[in-house]
């Protein structure tokens, strides 16, 4: 069983063409992936509600294969909280994706605090783009984990290349921090498995960035990793299934 816990649904982004829901499922079929977690991309830069609706429509088309995390603009204040509730209750989206680098806010900006509080009330995990200065490093997200120990926080890149050791430390110190090592070197993924535990880790490809080839490369990397099969299975789907109560067929 494989769940890809980090992908993006969009039409066009600069020169990059996205995949529609049907094409997504085609890629999943081709690589024996049971489900993918979709996030927006354009919605980080424009009005989030429209793009949350697109995500929900994609999930409605293939409910057994796709799930989606919504986004909001933390600058929107009360409106952002209403959008979170709409996404949770009307659109049935189980989590939140924030991209501090593209959305241009620091994760510890006080405007984030109500978002964190609402995410706890709604039981929606938040996955962050991370590993990039100046807005979204693992220790910055660690500060949020200190303030909100009940929130479920996922580092969407587990520190990338330069911050993976910091991501491990943050995960060790905060039981509510999870790691999606999309873009972490192979040594980092191995160390994370040893020190933070596979039950805190989830596979993510960042599709369609890097295309199918990067997806294949990341799956090959994970398959070649010297960890136990039980650990590999947690990373490839177990952790995210447990977190979101997914039941892939």
């Amino acid at each position, binding site marked *: 069983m494989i769940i890809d816990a980090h992908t993006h649904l969009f039409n066009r982004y600069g020169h990059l063409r996205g995949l529609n829901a049907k094409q997504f499922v085609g890629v999943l079929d081709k690589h024996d992936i049971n489900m993918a977690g979709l996030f927006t991309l354009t919605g980080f830069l424009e009005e989030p509600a429209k793009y949350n609706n697109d995500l929900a429509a994609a999930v409605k088309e293939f409910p057994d294969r796709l799930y989606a995390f919504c986004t909001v603009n933390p600058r929107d204040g009360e409106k952002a909280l209403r959008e979170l509730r709409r996404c949770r209750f009307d659109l049935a989206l189980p989590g939140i994706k924030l991209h501090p680098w593209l959305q241009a806010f620091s994760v510890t900006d006080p405007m984030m605090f109500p978002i964190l509080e609402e995410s706890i009330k709604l039981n929606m995990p938040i996955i962050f783009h991370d590993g*990039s200065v100046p807005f979204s490093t693992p220790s910055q997200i660690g500060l949020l984990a200190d303030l909100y120990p009940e929130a479920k926080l996922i580092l969407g890149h587990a520190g990338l290349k330069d911050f993976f050791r910091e991501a491990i430390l943050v995960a060790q110190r905060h039981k509510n921090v999870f790691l999606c090592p999309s873009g972490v*070197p*192979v040594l980092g993924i191995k160390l994370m498995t040893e020190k933070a535990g596979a039950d805190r880790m989830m596979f993510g490809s960042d599709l369609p960035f*890097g*295309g199918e*080839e*990067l997806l294949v*490369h990341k799956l090959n*990397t994970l398959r070649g990793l010297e960890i136990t099969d039980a650990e590999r299975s947690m990373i490839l789907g177990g952790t995210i299934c447990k977190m979101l109560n997914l039941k892939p067929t």
Partner: protein
Amino acid sequence: MKIIDVHCHVGKGIHKELSAQKLLKIMDDHGVDRAGICPVDEEIAVRNKEGNLFLLDLARKWPDRFMGFAVANPWYGKQAIEELRRAINEGLRGLKINSALQGFFLNDPLVYPLIEEAQRLRIPVYCHTGTPVGALPSQLADLASLFPQVVFIMGHAGYTDFWYDVIPSAKKAPNILIELSHFNNVPTIRKAMSELGCERFLFGSDSPVSSIAVELDKIRLLKLSQNDEERVLFGNMNGALG
């Protein structure tokens, strides 16, 4: 097909550990003929001489398999230049700089005397890039444009957040070669190759942080012509060593 892995670390660092024997075994398993080697964290930052002596020992034991990249922290001033000269005269083949680890901005005039020495010694200079604030492709482009006779290797191709800078940097300084470890976005690499030409790219693994298996998997996914793949895996670096 012959293969040179431009960049590996040998020794025991904070979190990485790789012995020469183990690296040789991995190289044999994957058909890698030669590897550029440098020492690990502490020896790159401060204990340069210990690192270089260790590399010299390995380069002497396996002269056909290892090319040592000497380390010298420019904060040591004249001592760093003497250390580089000694290490190269005794058999190392290049200079490795990690300005993030060594604590300076890659284009700071602090490093000029060391680069001047590399120019006199006619050796390539491998620079770690992709780590803000002081190890960026744009800073390397600035440095490399001041020393057009020196071959600079842009380690890790700027990595994720700085890949936009790679092509303009390589265009600004034609004496930059791009080493691809960790940068695994296959379509983006392919596009950069079509824009800059395959002769600007080098295969490197950054073992043991990434691995030869993982990095070769990526190169194969590029589906280059045999001629282009040969250049990336071998010919370009072989040429740069003179």
